[in-house]
């Protein structure tokens, strides 16, 4: 049965009706129109759906919307609350860290978590942190470079 829930998304309380089985990724995309969060797999591997839950990167396809009630959700659309580009977004643009762009929002959200807790990661640490984000276009090299650039600019 559907039930009303209130989700705190990008600093705004949003109320919507969901079934308990609804995945957070689906609710964000289909009900809250936040389609920057993508879905690229069904086994929690690709990370395209990465958002922040209480400031930490999680895969929104592996969280039920009802589980997220009462917690702070940040999506790619809310990464810079006042608009403009986040340093990571600028760096991805600068370093050609994306091609088709489908994995990019998730990639950036994971990188943001990494840099928030490890401001100057080594290349190996960056690659390790990206284990849960798959990209089929770039070969990762420029993604790593972008994250290094964003880290250097902090």
């Amino acid at each position: 049965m559907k039930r009303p829930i209130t989700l705190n998304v990008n600093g705004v309380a949003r109320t919507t009706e969901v079934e308990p089985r609804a995945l957070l990724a689906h609710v964000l995309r289909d009900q809250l129109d936040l389609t920057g969060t993508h879905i690229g797999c069904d086994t929690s591997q690709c990370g395209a759906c990465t958002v922040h839950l209480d400031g930490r990167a999680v895969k929104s396809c592996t969280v039920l919307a009802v589980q997220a009630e009462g917690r702070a959700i940040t999506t790619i659309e809310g990464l810079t609350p006042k608009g403009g580009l986040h340093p990571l977004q600028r760096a991805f643009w600068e370093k050609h860290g994306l091609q088709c762009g489908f994995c990019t929002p998730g990639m950036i959200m994971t990188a943001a978590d990494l840099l928030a807790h490890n401001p100057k990661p080594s290349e190996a640490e960056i690659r390790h942190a990206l284990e849960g984000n798959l990209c089929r276009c770039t070969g990762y090299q420029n993604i790593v470079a972008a994250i290094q650039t964003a880290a250097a600019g902090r």
Partner: protein
Amino acid sequence: MIPTSFEYVRAKNLSDAFKLLGKHAKVIAGGHSLLPLLRFRLAQPDTLIDIGQLPQLKGIKKAGGGMKIGAATTYRELLESKELKALYPLIAEVTEHIGDLQVRNAGTIGGGLAHADPAADMPPVMLVLDAAFLLQSKAGKRTVSARKFFKGPFTTALKPNELLTEIQLPAPPKRTGMAYASFEQAASGYALAGAAALIAVANGMITRAELAFTGLADTPFLAPAAAKLVGTAGDELISQVAAAAVAGVEANDDIHANPVYRAHLATVAARRALTTALGRAR
């Protein structure tokens, strides 16, 4: 990708959760073991009981010479505990390789252990550390040794009305070295074969040696062969012990590794883990 319908209840406290436990109810904390199954409809519970937010299931605290970890503590929280890392460096080392950054942020140690995936990284660590698990139900509580907990693939000593609430780690012996070596399946990151080792040394001689495997057989297990190292200096014996520990085990067979290769990898992992552990103990 869309689970079948179920009811969802966020437990307010443990007794709330116990009331709902039953055959067609499933417990969810981080959800990272269960949700993948739900999405493929390989699990179809009627009710999900969310215990992920219960404060009494969270946290890491010292207890005697050892530590206690709340079952709903996330892997990320394990990694952030300096005390845990100081006493059980192996836990931190292994946790860093569980899943990926996002999975570690949400997945819980108790959830993973209760799921009992035969190729998970944490069970062999629990086996060599001789951890005990606190299982609670409406009727009361009991403590089960990790060594009696893993019964088979995805099968544990947990009864349908019980919850795993706490992981209890005994004090590690003095001058102990611990290590984990594994070979990951490239796609899933699960261990094709992995081995955890714990070695304690006194006066240059091994006083305790523990070795456990994951990924190798249908459930993680402790290898008795490690005991042969006790009373020796280790070194030359390690290769023999590693081979003996794997010999006779019915190794898993899948598209990623046949039993011969898997057993070989397990032997290599055991040797490497024992060697590193011994080095660290000294």
